[in-house]
């Protein structure tokens, strides 16, 4: 499979604290990479660097073989190709669900309103929220909002989708409905980078799992090896925190 995203020697500091430390990664088209790690390990910052929400100090990012870092003018073009969904949904509170979804394709991509709305309705139907199209975000549950946020990212036809702890703010009962949507996206071959704390989900959805600590990749592997046969002590200890024995 061809490579779609390549990160070379990426470093990011917040004042004196090094958050990402010489990190390199290559993602193939259609691959689902799950990133796990303790709080503050740089997972979210890494995703934010990829679509330029954080400036990077060193290193290069290539999308489709094209260098996208250090090219601030074209940052918005890059962002059109990299979709992102956030932990706190960040829907526009004064816009209806349909308006939330169609805003970017209409204003950023200059697509026709009718065509965009038709696609938006199809996508909403797919995540089971067609009936909510004229509602405002406050009228939706957290899980519903997050599904809308996923649709809002999908309608831009991103080549890579970044999901940043998208279930971390949800009630346990709503986690499932959101993750089911992500699983179905994985099945249709979308390239995704997912940061999550849901280990069972990571195992189910990932082609490759990465354990990040101190802004570095400590261990990576296929989900079965990664969870059932961790190599490093650090990952063993990390995984133990998720299992309970009496």
């Amino acid at each position, binding site marked *: 499979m061809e490579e779609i995203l390549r990160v070379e020697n990426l470093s990011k500091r917040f004042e004196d604290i090094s958050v990402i430390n010489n990190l390199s990664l290559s993602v193939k088209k259609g691959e689902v990479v799950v990133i796990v790690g303790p709080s503050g390990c740089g997972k979210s910052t890494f995703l934010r660097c990829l679509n330029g929400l954080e400036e990077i100090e060193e290193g290069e990012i290539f999308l489709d073989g094209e260098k996208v870092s250090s090219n601030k003018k074209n940052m918005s073009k890059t962002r059109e190709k990299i*979709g992102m969904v956030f932990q706190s949904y*960040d829907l*526009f509170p004064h816009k209806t669900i349909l308006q939330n979804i169609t*805003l970017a394709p209409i204003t*950023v991509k200059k697509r026709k309103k009718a065509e965009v709305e038709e696609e938006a309705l199809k996508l909403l139907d797919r995540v089971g929220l067609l009936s909510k199209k004229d509602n405002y975000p406050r009228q939706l549950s957290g899980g519903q909002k997050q599904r809308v946020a996923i649709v809002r990212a999908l309608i831009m036809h991103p080549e890579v989708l970044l999901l940043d702890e998208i279930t971390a703010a949800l009630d346990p009962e709503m986690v499932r409905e959101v993750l089911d949507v992500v699983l179905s996206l994985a099945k249709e071959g979308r390239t995704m980078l997912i940061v999550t704390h849901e280990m069972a989900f990571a195992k189910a959805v990932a082609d490759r799992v990465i354990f990040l600590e101190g802004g570095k990749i400590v261990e990576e592997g296929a989900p079965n090896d990664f969870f059932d046969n961790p190599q490093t002590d650090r990952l063993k200890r990390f995984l133990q925190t998720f299992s309970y024995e009496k």
Partner: protein
Amino acid sequence: MLDFFKGIFTFWDSKVIIMILEGIRDTLYMTLGSTIVGYLLGLPLGIVLYVTSAKGLRPNPFIYRTGDFICNIIRSIPFLILLILLIPFTRLIVGKSYGSTATIVPLVICAAPYIARVVEASLNEVDTGVIEAAKAMGASNLQIIFKVLLVEAKTSLFTGFTITTGLLLGYSAMSGTVGGGGLGDIAVRYGYYRWKTDIMIVTVVLLIVIFQIIQNLGTYASKRIDHRKH
């Protein structure tokens, strides 16, 4: 007490009524005129302050500090002094320094930096996550300002508009002391200089009523456009 009200009614010949009606007209003209022109200057300035601030969409310390400094200077000059200081400028623009149109000039100069601050504060209230979401979709700064920021801040912007209108209503009355016209002018000329307490009371009551109408309309409208709650 009864004698007092009788006093008012015996005084109320048609001349006084016409004068008061004209006062209401002039007051509304000055208030709304200066609010609208004030917003034409203050709204863009507020957006510039927001955008160029350290955490803005395009930080620019030089532009921010310049705008910040000008706003602070004008806002720290008492309105009455500003009114007098600006007389030559007003004469240059309007051709005379008295009357309600002339009063709009200092009112606008006084209001614009105030409006800029109110607008900046409203924009600062918009959730940064929402702005990041728009950025992540590839929106340009201009698209973010017009399609996201101003839309998401509209409730707060409207509240600011109402507060500003109320403030300018008060200031327009104050400008009566230098021949500004309107209800404030009547209150000062008749009520204060000529000891016609009844006319003063009537004009003050009218100002209170106008203020209440503005405030209630504003509160009602900003509730209507708020989609976040209710």
